[in-house]
């Protein structure tokens, strides 16, 4: 009897639940805005010994928050609030914030955490992100670093916050290599320099005796390729960041320029001038015999691999003016993709594969733009007098380039959001050109 009863109930109860589900009210809500998200970044809590190799722990906690806030502001999609003007985070709030306090600051999210100098000599940064409205913890990460690397821990935390709030891949813990320029316009000294993406930890890699151009990071970030006029011949070199040594990309006297790596780092594609013609070649990154990919009369240069390594975009004047072309990685199926009027140069393929950035020359201006790999959807991102040399952030959301002032010829690095927005200056100690963004650091 009881069995039958339970069976009947088992049939009956789901039926009720189903009926309720079918009748459930549904409310459709549409809302939102285009704006930067306000995020509170108070001074982190401090734990452990007061004295650390890099100063007072409270100072470190404040500096970490300053770097995080600066990084977040540079994304353009987040407006940091603090740490200046905000009360410091109490230690008890690291995992249990008093949300009304932070809501009152106008922030919809809160970066909380602490900094601790441990007995093992490591500095730990705990990084938490909360939604101040719902009280939900959105993400947490922790980093243990050598105290001297405290900035990297802060960049990692900022990357975590940016990535969680924007949905985009991180890009802040990266480096930038570029050509540092000093001196008058007609006698400029050009050196390769490398720095963190926020302009810190800046150092020069070449001495400036020879003009250098177009440095490019390897996909692992451990090497560079660049062109130098060393020996008064434009030739490409491979530079090892760990040893500081460089070698010729292609031994010999041939002019080689505009080198860049394949996505797997095993090949380097470049231009070589031989017999009055400039064509695109590819060579193994560790050396070997170059293989020719183009043969048309004219100058074929500025090659850049697609992120899947199957295609290459380059510029060529084979039609009578500089235009963009795409070909398979073996040189087959070469097709022109730029038809918008004017000239197109220095193409570079987005790490996401969906866009190609380029320099458009026309109307007395050099402007940075993007288009689909098939050639459609051209959009110009800048409109200054002379913007050129685009390079993608590793998350494909920003394009860095250099802007040259009319008259003085001084060049400055800028980065512009690919989805629209104002270009911002990338801080460098001196003038800079030909930037290249590193991959995200491990």
């Amino acid at each position: 009897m009881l069995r039958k009863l339970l069976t009947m109930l088992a049939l009956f109860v789901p039926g009720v639940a189903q009926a309720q589900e079918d009748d459930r009210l549904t409310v459709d809500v549409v809302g939102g805005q285009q704006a930067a998200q306000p995020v509170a970044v108070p001074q982190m809590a401090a734990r452990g010994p007061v004295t650390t190799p890099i100063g007072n722990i409270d100072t470190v906690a404040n500096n970490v928050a300053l770097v995080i806030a600066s990084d977040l502001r540079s994304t353009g999609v987040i407006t940091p609030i603090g740490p200046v003007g905000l009360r410091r985070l109490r230690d008890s709030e690291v995992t249990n914030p008093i949300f009304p306090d932070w809501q009152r600051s106008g922030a919809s999210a809160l970066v909380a955490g602490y900094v601790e100098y441990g007995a093992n000599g490591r500095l730990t940064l705990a990084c938490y992100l909360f939604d101040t409205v719902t009280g939900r913890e959105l993400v947490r990460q922790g980093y243990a670093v050598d105290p001297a690397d405290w900035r990297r821990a802060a960049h990692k935390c900022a990357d975590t916050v940016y990535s969680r709030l924007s949905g985009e891949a991180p890009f802040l813990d990266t480096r930038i290599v570029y050509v540092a320029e000093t001196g008058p316009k007609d006698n400029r000294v050009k050196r390769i320099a490398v720095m963190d993406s926020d302009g810190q930890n800046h150092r020069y890699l070449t001495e400036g005796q020879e003009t250098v151009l177009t440095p490019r990071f390897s996909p692992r970030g451990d090497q560079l390729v660049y062109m130098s006029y060393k020996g008064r011949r434009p030739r490409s070199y491979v530079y090892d960041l760990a040893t500081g040594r460089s070698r010729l990309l292609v031994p010999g006297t041939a002019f080689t320029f505009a080198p860049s790596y394949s996505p797997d780092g095993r090949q380097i594609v470049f231009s070589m001038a031989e017999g009055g013609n400039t064509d695109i070649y590819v060579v193994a990154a560790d050396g070997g015999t170059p293989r020719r990919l183009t043969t048309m009369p004219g100058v074929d240069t500025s090659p850049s691999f697609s992120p899947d390594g199957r295609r290459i975009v380059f510029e060529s004047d084979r039609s009578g003016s500089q235009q963009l072309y795409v070909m398979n990685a073996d040189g087959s199926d070469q097709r022109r993709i730029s038809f918008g009027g004017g000239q197109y140069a220095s193409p570079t393929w987005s790490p996401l594969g969906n866009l190609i950035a380029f320099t458009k020359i026309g109307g007395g201006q050099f402007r940075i733009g993007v288009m689909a790999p098939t050639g459609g959807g051209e959009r110009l991102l800048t409109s200054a007098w002379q913007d050129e040399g685009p390079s993608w952030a590793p998350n494909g959301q920003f394009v860095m380039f250099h802007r040259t002032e009319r008259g003085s010829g001084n060049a400055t690095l800028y980065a512009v959001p690919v989805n629209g927005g104002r270009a911002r200056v990338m801080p460098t100690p001196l003038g800079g050109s030909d930037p290249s963004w590193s991959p995200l650091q491990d």
Partner: protein
Amino acid sequence: MRLDRAEWAGNGMALGLHVALVAALSLNLARHPIPAEPPAVFVEFVDDVGLEAAAPSQVPQEAPQATTPDPIDEAIPPPPEPEAAPEPPRAEPRPTPPRERATPAPATPRERPRPRPRATGRLGDDLLAGVREGNSRTGPAETAAPSAPAFSAQAQAGIVQSIRRQIQPCANRQIDPGPGANEIVVTLNLRLDRRGNLIRPPRVTGTTGVTADNQRYEQRVKDLAIAAYQGCSPLTGLPEEFYDRWKDFDMTYKLP
């Protein structure tokens, strides 16, 4: 042993009442959620980070659903790269950290929904008063059966409008994370007590419009949907006589 009529009647009544009792208890259990469980921490960090209790939520916590856990980050940045610079830096990077610009004055406090029924907006409190009376064509509410008030289309529309009107200000505050995010539609299931408070955290029950191009925004739009609801809850002014109809409802959210 033979039972007489009175005994048959008594046993039958007892059996019937037991059946009713079991059914009532079963339905009651089916309607109420399992009591909240303490939040689970999925992410491990460097040893001394993140082992403490998570922040309390403003609604009862439930164990997270079996979704993709947050990334585990054990990465410890490597020691400084011994890059050999051929030349000592001529320009030292400034040792001081980047200076913050003056922090903008705190914006006006986030507009919060009033905890009590509001009389603002185009739709006044009398909207639901009319609904409570049921369909006017059927006469005043007093004439309806007091235990089962008529839930007309008008009543349903009134409740939907009231909920939307209360949530809309918070929906409008959500930030669009990027192009294509507005194609994502998130469905939340919400369960309320009679005072309009959540009795469990909003639960994402569906997502549509996700493509390869906007997939990276899916989690964020889910966050925004939850924030849009919770930022303007608890709901107020909903007709208590129709509690059974709004105690468990769905809200879809999308960016404009």
